[in-house]
């Protein structure tokens, strides 16, 4: 296919035109790059969070943009300071967000005020990515009025090695939700409060008689990820009096682990749970839908389930009659008194914190901004009428009054709850625990799964010396 003669006849070499076009394109692209507005004398602060307007956690993103930023800027202006605040939204999977934040901090850049999951504080501190708040923000940190409002246990979310690295935003708790209609049909009592694992099994056995109903859903397997650990394995483990990490050692094939795996075996091997649901990539979402449809009797979940899943208006799987149909009970220890600290009932909690970027150009102002975001007024504005367990007692007293479930969390669950160890290897240990539950659900004897778990943990945490039995 010879080119048409007139094309060959063109004498102009294409080189200058081509190179010029490419260069122009590259310049244009480079110039629309990092254009941080840097006015003389003014201070620019940046907030980042795993939230984005119009997407994930949009309410929180809107609060930062429409409430925090204008008000903080105005307050600073009134004090004679020219401060500009920018918000850097994200809104992706937590692991990806964590990676980006870690990379930023590693290269000593990033936003001044950063949202983190409380569980990441320890590993970020060990890596030198975050520093204690008072080291970064100065003496005004310890003088802050808000500390008095945050219960010691909740402050623990931001504490590592005895030092405060983060300011907790709020917390949550895990309970057993149950469907009162199904309970009535199975002849079970309401209110229901099991006092041992056996009573959960007994209720499940009664529920099994109802056609089309899965009696118990306690998250298991690897597909549910951390939801398996937080909603299933760890509360159960706490119910055996065992902590996953205590006195510098990780628990191995301990009696507690074997009991937990044995309990899973009882549920999923005994027809009380749906093993397939634990394997599906979207199994947790399905468990929500099934509970809302009246197809699950008992479900172990956090209060997130109450406020965002079955919530009648904006829930993921809304239940118009939530307040009448959904009951909740404390998670019992294996038997009364067998739980951690000799407790009869147990729970697990987590929550997000905000940290200061130790490489911030304006750490004092960054702290002021963060303290402003944690004022009672700001937190109430963020809730915008919704109820959630915040870190501040004064706010909780006000906003939780209208919601019996969240009051229950604040009054009954938080005093008995436990927290996860915030160490870098925790995600891997958690994954190993998920694998152990997966193995048991698909038929491996608990003893064998426990031993495999111990072998894996030994590999993760650097040998048998760091594992207790």
């Amino acid at each position, binding site marked *: *296919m*010879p*080119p048409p003669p007139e*094309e*060959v006849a*063109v004498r102009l*070499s*294409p*080189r200058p035109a*081509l190179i010029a076009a*490419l260069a122009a*394109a*590259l310049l244009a*692209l*480079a110039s*629309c*790059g*990092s254009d941080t507005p840097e006015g003389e004398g003014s201070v620019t602060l940046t907030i980042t969070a795993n939230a*984005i*307007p*119009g*997407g*994930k*956690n*949009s*309410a929180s993103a809107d609060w930062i943009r429409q409430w925090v930023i204008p008000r903080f800027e105005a307050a600073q202006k009134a004090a004679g300071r020219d401060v500009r605040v920018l918000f*850097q*939204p*994200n*809104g*992706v*999977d937590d692991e*990806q967000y964590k*990676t*980006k934040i870690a*990379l930023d901090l*590693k*290269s000593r*850049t990033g936003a001044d005020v950063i949202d983190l999951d409380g569980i990441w504080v320890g590993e970020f501190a060990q890596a030198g990515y975050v520093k204690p708040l008072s080291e970064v923000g100065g003496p005004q940190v310890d003088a802050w009025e808000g500390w008095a409002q945050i219960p010691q246990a909740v402050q623990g979310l931001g504490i590592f090695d005895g030092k405060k690295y983060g300011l907790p935003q709020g917390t949550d708790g895990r309970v057993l939700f149950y469907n009162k209609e199904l309970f009535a049909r199975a002849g079970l009592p309401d209110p229901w409060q099991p006092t041992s694992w056996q009573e959960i099994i007994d209720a499940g056995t009664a529920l099994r008689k109802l056609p089309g109903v899965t009696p118990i859903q306690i998250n298991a397997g690897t597909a549910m990820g951390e939801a398996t650990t937080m909603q299933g394995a760890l509360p159960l483990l706490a119910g055996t009096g065992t902590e996953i990490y205590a006195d510098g050692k990780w628990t191995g094939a301990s009696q507690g682990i074997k009991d937990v795996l044995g309990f899973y075996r009882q549920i999923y091997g005994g027809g009380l749970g749906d093993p397939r649901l634990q394997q599906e990539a979207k199994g947790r*979402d399905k468990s*929500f839908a099934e509970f809302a449809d009246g197809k699950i009797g008992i479900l172990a979940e956090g209060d*997130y389930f109450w406020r*965002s*899943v079955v*919530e009648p208006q*904006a*829930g*993921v799987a809304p239940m118009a009659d939530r307040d009448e149909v959904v009951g909740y009970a404390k998670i019992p220890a294996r038997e009364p008194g067998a739980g951690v600290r000799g407790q009869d009932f147990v729970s697990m909690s987590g929550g997000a914190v905000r940290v200061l970027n130790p490489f911030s150009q304006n750490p004092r102002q960054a702290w002021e901004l963060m303290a402003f975001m944690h004022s009672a007024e700001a937190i109430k504005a963020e809730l915008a009428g919704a109820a959630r367990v915040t870190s501040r007692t004064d706010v909780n007293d006000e906003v939780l009054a209208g919601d019996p479930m969240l009051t229950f969390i604040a009054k009954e669950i938080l005093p008995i709850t436990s927290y996860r160890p915030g160490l870098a290897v925790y995600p891997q240990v958690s994954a190993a625990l998920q694998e152990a539950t997966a193995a048991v659900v698909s038929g491996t004897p608990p003893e064998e799964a426990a031993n495999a778990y111990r072998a894996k943990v030994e590999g993760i945490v650097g040998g048998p010396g760091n594992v207790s039995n």
Partner: protein
Amino acid sequence: MSAVRHVLGRIASAAFLAVVGAFFALPMLWLASAPFDAAPSITVSVPEFTLANFRAILDNPYALGSIGNSVIQAGGAAAIVVVLAALAAYALSRVRVPGRDALLYVLLLLSSVVTGTAAMVPIFELATRLDLIDTHLGVILVVSGGLLPAAIFILKDFMDATPTSYEESARVFGASPLQILWHIVVPVVRPGLATIAVWAVASVWGGFLMQYILLRDPAKAPSAVILYTLYTEGGQPNLDLISTFSLLYSLPVVLMYLFVSGRYGFRFHGGIKQ
């Protein structure tokens, strides 16, 4: 006998094409129905027709702009990849460089390391030091680096397969090498170049992790990143928005393919018969 065989052959080939066509069309049904459904689920159904989902996606502050960002990033990468790969492939095809094929294959292998998750830190640090964080250019250069070896590899194959006689005659008439490349070689391999361009665009279009790590301002984020943010307040994927945005986000690549295949042809090689 032969006529029967011929007819049977035609029937078999028609049946084969029908099955293959159904196989390729079937998964796409969801994309045709869910965006128009008032309550889309994972099930394909005749929709309860509505355009409300499209209105909702227009309300998202980043959705439409992100398609523009994808065009800039994918288009920029495709331009760099096609131009640089064509120049390199031509030279490698026409001039003997010892070990060139081995070198190309080693680069191809290394590109598999760089496009994986593990190279995240080196790439991020590199981009930080070159001041490319939060720029379109940074994304373009990083993804182009990953695509170039395969593009050169494929294009060199095309160039090898084009006969050199025209080039020799053009040279006799005093044309410079760049003129020969531009006026003689490029027209012949143009469908191949178009294919590489579409391939580059499609590869960049779906990319998420590297783009997310390299960019800061969501107003610069490509559609693949924004698609991941479309969750409900409760943290569940928002199928109304995801299905609708999927459709909008797929349209530019589809239109580009239709345009390119109509204009330049969409095949490998230039239809040269040896």
